[in-house]
């Protein structure tokens, strides 16, 4: 069953059309990779899915478990089970990771299902251990003065704590050294494993330029985004093909059509 369905999506940013009729289906329990050259609309897609107000959907639809989310605000989408790991996470001074995470976790879980301080601490400690983060991280201000690698780890920590249905990872691999990439990938894989039980299947949508992260987080499906549309789809092995031949041949084939 599809968790996310995008139908003929057209998105404009500052008056310029970036997505030009994009169709995409992310099935439950799968890792789906989107690759594409610079300027093809990858970040526009992730922002449009999350509902950034600067990205204007002019036509088409985005469905989450069959329900349109276009009218929902970003926080409502998050509570419906969407998560976006940002390419450039914002620095927020004065707000500690601990305070922020607890607010976010309890917002997503809702009033009835709030996590006690103790349970929260236990859970966050466990996830931080997995991501090899030191406990003093919790008292630091959100992303303030973090290195590139620390920011990405913090994003994955949020992913694991919020435990959404679908994680959209926007170039999570950029700026990571090989060790950090492994740790972050393990975090993503651990998120997927939680969904090993059929009724709680998790999905990941990885948006990336490079094959690197896909060596650690194996995609079930790959879609190639070129000039605002999905130009080609295939299984995981499409990645290797791209690594050898680049995007040029897809553009050429499209031009022939």
């Amino acid at each position, binding site marked *: 069953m599809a968790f996310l369905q995008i139908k003929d999506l057209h998105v404009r940013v500052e008056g310029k059309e970036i997505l030009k009729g994009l169709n995409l289906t992310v099935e439950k329990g799968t890792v789906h990779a989107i690759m594409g050259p610079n300027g093809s609309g990858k970040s526009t897609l992730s922002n449009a899915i999350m509902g950034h107000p600067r990205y204007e959907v002019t036509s088409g639809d985005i469905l989450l478990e069959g329900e349109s989310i276009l009218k929902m605000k970003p926080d409502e989408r998050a509570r419906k089970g969407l998560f976006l790991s940002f390419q450039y996470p914002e620095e927020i001074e004065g707000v500690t990771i601990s305070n922020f995470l607890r*607010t976010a976790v309890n917002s997503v879980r809702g009033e009835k299902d709030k996590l006690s301080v103790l349970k929260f601490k236990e859970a966050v400690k466990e996830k931080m251990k997995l991501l090899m983060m030191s406990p003093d991280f919790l008292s630091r201000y959100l992303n303030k003065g973090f290195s590139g690698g620390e920011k990405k780890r913090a994003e994955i920590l949020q992913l694991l704590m919020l435990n959404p249905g679908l994680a959209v990872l926007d170039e999570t691999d950029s700026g990571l050294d090989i060790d950090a990439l492994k740790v972050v990938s393990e975090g993503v894989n651990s998120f997927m494993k939680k969904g090993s039980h059929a009724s709680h299947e998790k999905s990941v949508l990885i948006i990336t330029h490079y094959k690197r992260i896909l060596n650690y987080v194996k995609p079930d499906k790959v879609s190639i985004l070129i000039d605002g549309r999905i130009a080609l789809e295939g299984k995981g092995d499409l990645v290797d093909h791209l690594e050898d031949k680049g995007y040029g041949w897809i553009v050429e084939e499209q031009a022939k059509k």
Partner: protein
Amino acid sequence: MSKKEKEGSFEAGLQALCTRLGEPKWACAERMDFLKAMKSLPPVSFKYGSGVSFDSGIDFENPKGLIPTAGSVRVTHSNADLALVEMIQGPGLGILGEEVLALFRDTSDSPARSRSALLNSAFTNNVLLIKVKESARIDKPVILDLHAGSLPQIASVFILAGANSSSSVIFRLSSSSSPDADEGIKGYFGLSIKALAGKGSDLKLINLQNLGQGIVFFDERKADVMKDARVDWFELSLGSGYANNSIISNLKEENASTVIKTLFAGSRNQMFDVCTAAYHEAARTRSDLLSRGVVNDEAKALSRGMISIGDAAFGSEGYERQDALLLCDRSEADAIPNLEIRNHDVKCSHGSTVGQLDSEKIFYLLSRGINFEDAKRLMIKGFFAPTLELLPDEAKSGFEKSLDATIIGGFSR
């Protein structure tokens, strides 16, 4: 009424006040000097070069409503270890004695005092002297509650921090109405705090201002900081309809330092006019000035900072930063940093920002399931947090509680 008659009535008011308080002659003479100095100054203007204009509603040409004629500020203290801190309280300057008063006489390079500051010095009717003993190390902050029950009132606090002492004082200003209520007493409240930080002393002075919105508040705070001493000023301004703060540190001797951090949060028609200054008069002195505030509704704020480095202040450092957040299209804020440097061997910087909550940061918080109101709340609290973390719990929680009640509670308005 002619101008002359008005002037005469300031003097008559002062005579009457001295008689009521039973001031000794030397104290009356001192007050008269302040009054003369006040009258020699040009009329007060609340219009600033940056185009921000304030109307405090106070006419400094007219003594009506400015001279305390009855009552007093209720001053209570708690937490003070009286073996280490001496506190003397009375209605007039008489309690200080001539010699102590002379210690606080202006000898600095800092500019002429304002009309309101001189008015406060001339007409004070609540005087408190705090003496921290030499080498006393006081961990718990002394808490002073100043409660205005009737207005006008003017309070003056004199602090002598003995050599190598370490202490902090929290001033909590309140009136008989909560800061977010329109009713309650109305009128003028003046405050003057003067500190003398002896060699090697460390003095932290925190002001939590929660006066009712009917009150016009003018204060002047000044510290003379001696060799190796440090004075930290914190202003947490939440109340009053109009607040005018002037906080000045004179770094008088080598290796003296100061921190001046002012936080304000206002809504409705509140106005904040914050002026902070550090005068570096000696070598290797350091100052760090920060002003941070939020304004909602029709509230206005102006923050002016001044770092002045004199020609003897070799190897000094001065930093100033002013940030204001506008929570509404109708709110106004401006920041004016100033540097005056008369020495080549210094490190100085300044910066200021005035803007709205960053929409990208808000989006980031929303994307985590946090609703818009909570996102704003987190960001506003975060805006103040780095400064609040430096403060004792008594001051920090007081500010946060009022912030919740006034600004954050006001989002639904």
